[in-house]
């Protein structure tokens, strides 16, 4: 499938790091279904889960609590989303796995607490 419009990616779904190629409808090089989906998505709009920390104002607790975005977000929006996460403060320590909503640029950003 060496078409002119073909795009090449290295799959980041798992450590096999398959070399994928897609013309937007078909995918070659993927060893699994998730790799195919990744290539098709990557060709249109690359998405990533952000893993970071959120600042806590609870005196007895850690200053930062690890979080991830509840769903993958557009790669190009990451700097903007990070600015919102960095500006946010939480006033109580949320349990592992709970969700936090913070103000975002157009819609709220949903985060999942990943650590204690």
């Amino acid at each position: 499938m060496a078409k002119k419009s073909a795009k090449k990616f290295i799959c980041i779904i798992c450590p096999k790091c398959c070399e994928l190629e897609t013309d937007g409808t078909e995918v070659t090089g993927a060893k699994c279904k998730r790799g195919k989906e990744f290539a098709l998505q990557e060709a249109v709009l690359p998405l990533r889960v952000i893993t970071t920390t959120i600042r806590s104002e609870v005196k007895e607790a850690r200053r930062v609590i690890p979080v991830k975005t509840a769903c993958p977000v557009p790669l190009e929006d990451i700097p903007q989303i990070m600015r919102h996460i960095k500006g946010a403060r939480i006033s109580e320590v949320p349990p592992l796995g709970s969700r936090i909503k913070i103000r975002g640029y157009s819609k709220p950003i949903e985060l999942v607490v990943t650590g204690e």
Partner: protein
Amino acid sequence: MAAAVGAAKGGLKRVLLLERLSRLGGILNQCIHLGFGLQYFKEELTGTEYAARYKGVVHERDIEVRTSCFVHTITPQKEITFVCADGEFGVSAKHIVMATGCRERTREMLTVPGTRPAGIFTAGLAQEMVNIYGVMPGKEVVVIGSGDIGLIMARRMTLEGAKVHAVLEILDHLSGLIRNKVQCLDDFGIPLLLEHELLEIFGGDRVEAIRYRNNKTGEQKILPCDTVLFSVGLIPEQDLLIDAGIKPGNGIHLVGNADYIHDYVDAVTREAEKLGESLT
């Protein structure tokens, strides 16, 4: 944790898990990034999630867990001495499993010329500062070595607002996983300079610049920065045995990164469980 779970599963009656820090999980607690658990839990987790989930497995078993306990001596007769807030204690065991992980190779071990200013960190230390304490090590960063921790920290520092100027790798190929180069460097436009060698660090109180050489062309350059992160290899932590002149065997076991460096925690978990189960 996994060796203790394996031992309890295998039928050992009394299993004691001693942890130096205040909570279980070791280095996983500072690994807030994804990429853990795909094999063991069949789900992509962050390191912190993996640790929390495996703690659940430990608590299901009859294992005595003691945190904030520092083991300072082990003898060939398998006597352990540790200190904790309540004082010093001794315990003798039939088996000792050393799951002490590894240390990072430091700047000193590479003998990099230059001054000794503030602003030089191992990548893992920087990770602990950012992810556990919420403190930034610096703003203008250069990463030395393309190991996975270095790649992950290049992204982490970028997300937190620092400028990562480059990742320097002395070899002609990446040390870490390709997927980490893609999602940590390429996604954020951080250059990976292969066959580039750090020659000198400049700075008085704080790092001011580094000098490096392109080993393909011989060209040298000065790069201004205030922080240098080293991701140049890991060394199994076996000091307790080395100090006592003990070799593994005869009831003393090494597992995980304390034995040799593993790429995946899932493999460490499996290996440690298996070792635990084999103890009688």
